[in-house]
């Protein structure tokens, strides 16, 4: 049986898992911005005065939130597809066990979308503080609801022993602690990822205007906090997961090591660049390095997350299914159009940016 890096699985399973992992990483990259952005906007709305114009971070986040949510949703569709390919029965069962909550994802996202648009309007700035705070907090609540619902889905996909009790105990794998640990890692990583993207935006003329040193310094502090929190959350999660031999073995398995290395590289990149003076030379290069590091973190988290789940799923029983699916054909068309469309996306961004930058 051939075994393929980075997964110790036969090639068919490995390809599907790889696509699930990569697409979830992309999803989480944008989710990071949405989570961090909604927290920032909620915090800003609670401040006494409306500092939208004075605070370039707030201005850029406010401006980009609907598009970022659109990107998170678009990117979420791919893992939604591949999770059905890899873990079909597990995923469907999880969705059915929490059906109402699962379906509430939709109204929550629609509400969040329009609330982000409302926060972009000129009128919003003139509203009273309680109204502004109410809107920003409601959007944040929607985002949190959606994020925690996906976590619940994920948890049910691995806790098969709870299925026949309709999602209630007995559990293989503890509820409260692991949810807290997992949520803590995701949240801290989101703050780090989101602030890295905002930093790149502020350093990019035409997107956020030129970086203001005060804002850039604040961003560095947020990023520093995000990184420290993420490291602490990872350590906390490791401590919690030690109680379960299966997950612990997955976390420390060889197949997971490349992801831990990637995480380390990303943390080092951040470690080198966060303390540097924001207005230092080649700010744009630094911002890009951080952006890359942010993406590494998303990939690392995605890989570790899947490594963990594959422990529970007994992949050897799933492989015959993956094998028969791979036989169906169509992947070459996907590969060809993925390449063509990636080029189209790059072209669209180039067209828009060149003009926006020239004007700025």
């Amino acid at each position, binding site marked *: 049986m051939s075994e393929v890096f980075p997964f110790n699985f036969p090639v068919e399973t490995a390809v599907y898992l790889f696509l699930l992992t990569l697409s979830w990483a992309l999803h989480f990259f944008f989710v990071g911005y949405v989570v961090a952005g909604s927290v920032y906007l909620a915090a800003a709305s609670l401040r006494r005065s409306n500092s939208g114009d004075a605070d370039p971070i707030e201005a850029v986040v406010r401006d980009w939130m609907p598009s970022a949510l659109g990107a998170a949703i678009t990117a979420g569709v791919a893992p939604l597809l591949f999770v059905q390919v890899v873990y079909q029965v597990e995923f469907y069962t999880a969705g*059915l066990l929490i059906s109402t909550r699962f*379906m509430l994802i939709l109204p929550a996202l629609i509400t969040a979308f329009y609330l982000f648009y409302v926060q972009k309007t000129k009128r919003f700035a003139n509203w009273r503080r309680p109204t502004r705070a109410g809107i920003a907090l409601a959007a944040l609540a929607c985002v949190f609801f959606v994020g925690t619902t996906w976590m619940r889905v994920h948890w049910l996909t691995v806790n098969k022993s709870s299925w026949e009790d*309709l999602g209630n105990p007995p559990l293989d794998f503890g509820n409260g602690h692991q949810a807290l640990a997992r949520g803590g890692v995701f949240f801290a990583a989101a703050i780090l990822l989101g602030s890295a993207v905002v930093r790149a935006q502020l350093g990019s003329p035409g997107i956020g205007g030129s970086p203001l040193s005060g804002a850039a310094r604040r961003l560095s502090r947020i990023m520093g906090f995000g990184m420290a929190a993420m490291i602490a959350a990872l350590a906390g999660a490791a401590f919690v997961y030690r109680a379960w031999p299966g997950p612990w073995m997955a976390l420390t398995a060889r197949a997971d090591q490349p992801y831990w290395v990637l995480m380390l590289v990303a943390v080092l990149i951040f470690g080198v660049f966060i303390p540097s003076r924001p207005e230092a030379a080649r700010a744009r290069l630094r911002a890009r390095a951080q952006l890359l590091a942010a993406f590494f973190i998303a990939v690392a988290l995605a890989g570790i997350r899947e490594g963990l789940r594959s422990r529970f799923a007994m992949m050897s029983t799933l492989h015959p299914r993956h094998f028969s699916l791979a036989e169906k054909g169509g992947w070459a068309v*996907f590969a060809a159009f993925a390449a063509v469309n990636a080029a189209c996306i790059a072209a669209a961004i180039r067209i828009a*940016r060149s003009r926006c930058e020239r004007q700025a």
Partner: protein
Amino acid sequence: MDRLPAFYPLNDFGPLMKGMVIGGMGIVHVFLAQFAIGGGLLLCYFQRLASGGRDPLARRFIDGYFKALVLVSFVLGALTGVGMWLTAIQVSPRTIGVMVDEFHWVWATEWTFFCVEVVAGYAFYRCGVRLPDRSRMALLAMYSVAAWFSLFWINGILSWQLTPGAWVVRRTVWSGFFNPGFWPSLLYRTASSMTIAALIAFIVINAMPGFSSDERRGLIRRASNLMLPMLFMPALAVWYFLTMPADSRSWLLGGSPAMSLFLAGAAGSSMLLGGYALIGLVRQRLYINGATATTLTALAFSATACGEFVREGSRKPYTVREALYANSITPEEVKIARVAGWAGRDPYPLPDESAYPNSQLVLGGKVFRLQCGVCHTLDGANGLTHLVGTWSIEQRRMNLARLQHTKPFMPPFAGNADELEALVQFLGWHGAGRPRNWTRSNDEAARRSIQGWLDEAGTGPGTTPAAEAEREP
């Protein structure tokens, strides 16, 4: 024995028919998606008019229209698309599972086009106003081509469900994708997308401030050109109709009154709309105000709604023709279930199981959940309590055992005689108001009669004579 499929903890939707729930979501999604697709074509057309400063009005209109597209289609359109996945899992996990298994690479390909659509769309939304004509055209063309290709891919999967064609034998992706219904359905949907886009353009033209009435009139005249493909829609509809299996055609032509009514609704609304568009707007160049435009858009929505119900309903008794019945059981599994039972294997408890007086009723509840619940409710829409309410117990036993002959758009009963008797008892108990005590039925003579009816009915679908004739080699 064959490997049995997984059972799922299916939920009851109360008085709502599951088909109506997925249908409702589907209609909204299809309408918004068609707005996005037609909208792309319409914007490219206006951008061509605007190029080189030839028609500054067209350029202004594009920017207003695009805002509507982003606010409505990018939010609600995209999210109802995600909603279709989530709802399909709730309504019929096995069906969506089979579709994913067969076409995951097609869906993955579609996703890459969806990404282009979103990126090009947002790029235009954010920077379009400041861009020169060539760049605007490039972004709009990318957006439009990507949006149309999303239709291309999804159309192959949806039309496969009704007319799988050579796939039934070959079981390859492309034999299923390019099925007999593919082209008529693709062309029909393209024309209908252009119509919807034009109708919404009329609303936007009326709602945008700053245009004089002559300017509005000019823009409306141009937008109505997008409705010209409606001329071909009757021929495309007939072509599509002819690709349908004979029994599906017979549901539409009177075999199922509900389906015939939906077909009449779709055809009537489309004809009214087409008549107004072609005679009033294109020939007589009438002005159309916001209120009329909104009414016509509502008519187009109702045509879409009826059309989608026709598409969904005419597949019965299958969700994937020849491969999977509406209740997510395959023809092969029906044979297994007749011998070894089916619902008895369902490991998931009923939500209020402890309130059931005996295990036979629990089994009956599970039979209902697995076999009937996707198309029927108990007391709500298409409720079984009403449908079987006037039947004697003998009639119930016979009609349910001969299910596919009772109404050929229902699948054959998938279970053994004990499970059928459990269902009959369950329906009786529920119809009697769920009393606390209910005696188990142990009537051996009834069991033998049921077995006789089941054997007589066979395990194949209860096709109509027309379908039988078509099946003859």
